[in-house]
């Protein structure tokens, strides 16, 4: 399958675009000439064998890694020297594979940190504990509780994250990203460690989000990727080798070769099952 050209006639408004992005780490090419775009309310899945460059792509998207080449555009504006703390202000939220919950802060406090983008009062007001700062905090608390409630985690608000079941911690991590009401959500392997039932539940939550935001999803579980993504991009050795609708990607010979390590006749096998990607993911 050919990699489709960027759709014509778009202004880039509301899109997240990576153009010809290249990243090297001391001579090792992690990403090379990767171009992707995520349209509003689209779920774009990024898959690839281990070492394909998925995490680097995510780190570029959120400012943890500055690309050697290429540009990042968001809503038609080129982002230069994007720094992680600017991400929330731009309407972009990211979850981490390891969740990164603050273990010694309550679930509610964890989520409230994510809501700070919507704080109406500034640093000075907070420092001086002005009344409007207290009002603002109550508003953020209500917002955080509403998101926890939406994800079915409100009853855990007062608990510390380590005391929660794993799947619930995943939800808290998602709540912390969602509470900033992002327009683009970057999800880094959100289903890792979940059972099939939990993953199906997570998939339905994810589908509900697409009414409000675009999602860039890096995930190993092909069942989830195939069921929730509008489009899938496939990376291999830092290069984009395929992109298209799930059904097209799963039968793409280049994708099959990347996952299985051999040339495969078109339609002879699918990369969809988890057993299929074991050759490179192990």
């Amino acid at each position, binding site marked *: 399958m050919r990699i489709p050209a960027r759709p014509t006639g778009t202004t880039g408004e509301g899109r997240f675009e990576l153009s010809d992005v290249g990243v090297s780490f001391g001579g090792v090419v992690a990403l090379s000439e990767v171009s992707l775009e995520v349209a509003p309310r689209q779920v774009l899945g990024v898959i690839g064998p281990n070492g394909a460059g998925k995490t680097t792509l995510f780190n570029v998207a959120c400012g943890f890694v500055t690309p050697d080449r290429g540009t990042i555009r968001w809503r038609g504006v080129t982002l230069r020297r994007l720094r992680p703390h600017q991400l929330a202000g731009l309407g972009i939220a990211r979850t981490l594979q390891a969740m990164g919950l*603050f273990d010694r802060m309550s679930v509610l406090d964890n989520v409230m940190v994510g809501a700070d983008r919507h704080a109406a009062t500034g640093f000075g007001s907070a420092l001086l504990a002005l009344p409007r700062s207290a009002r603002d905090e109550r508003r953020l608390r209500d917002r955080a509780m509403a998101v926890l409630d939406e994800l079915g985690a409100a009853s855990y608000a007062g608990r510390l994250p380590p005391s929660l079941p794993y799947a619930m911690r995943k939800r808290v991590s998602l709540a912390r990203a969602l509470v900033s009401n992002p327009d683009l959500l970057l999800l880094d392997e959100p289903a890792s460690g979940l059972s099939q039932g939990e993953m199906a539940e997570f998939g339905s939550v994810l589908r509900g989000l697409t009414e409000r935001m675009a999602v860039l999803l890096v995930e190993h579980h092909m069942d989830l990727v195939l069921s929730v993504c509008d489009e899938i991009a496939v990376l291999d050795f830092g290069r984009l080798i395929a992109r298209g609708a799930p059904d097209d990607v799963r039968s793409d010979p280049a994708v099959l070769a990347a996952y299985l390590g051999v040339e495969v006749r078109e339609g002879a096998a699918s990369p969809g099952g988890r057993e299929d990607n074991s050759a490179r993911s192990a």
Partner: protein
Amino acid sequence: MQQLLNTLLTGLTLGMVYAAFALALVLIWRSTRIINFAQAPMAMITTYVALTVIDADYSYWVGFTAALLSGLVLGAAIERLVIRPVEGKPHINAVILTLGLFIVIHAVAALLFGSRYRSFPAPFGVRGFQVGEVNVALTGFGIFTIGSVVVVMLLLVALFRGTDLGLMMRAAAFNQEVARLLGVRVGRMFTLGWALAALVGSLSGLLIAGGSLVHPSYMDSAVVFGFVAAVLGGLDSPVGAVVGGLVLGVSLSFVSGYVGSELVALAALGILMVVLLLRPGGLFSHATPRRV
């Protein structure tokens, strides 16, 4: 009985000062993993600021406020100008910088204010109360010491537990990378943390100096006892710093009162060694899984 009570009261007052100093160390440690060895001379120089203001015929309280504010500014300035440039480098770099600051601030204080001993006023009496025939070793200044440290601690608890700003500071301290992703201005939080720590350190400097003599090295022993108190409680725990300060203050007071004042420093070392042997993370440390 009277000696027991007075030893206990003296220890509590002393412990509160150690607690304040330990709290200043903990505030910086938990956010940046740096032991700020310059905390003592920073507090010393702000006490000299207070003394200069008081010598210019302003009241004690104007000097007191000036010292706390100058501590706030000094802490923020040191974080931005000295510590920030080595952020992301090994922590030992910053620790060595604080040792360098220790020397530099001493030298600057000696140049600006001289090396001679100067008396520092106390806003309240420094003589114990008389209850009937009994002399109680709790002074007006001692009550002020305990009260002011308690007030500062309550304010810090209110800041960290009850405000959005405190939430951001805690998030930055627990995990910088995640906090940044969530939009927290981590650098700004660290500046504020250093400023608050320096303010609390300045308070301890003023409390140690009250009714006593000051000179450029008068806070040097405080850094030893404050550090012991912080380690005793657990360097990550503000509550531990307070409890550690009180335990150390009372323990050293009993050593001084019942064994001999010359053994106080040795007793502090002994307490530190026992704690490090029995509970290396301190009394209020959180259990961490062993890496295998």
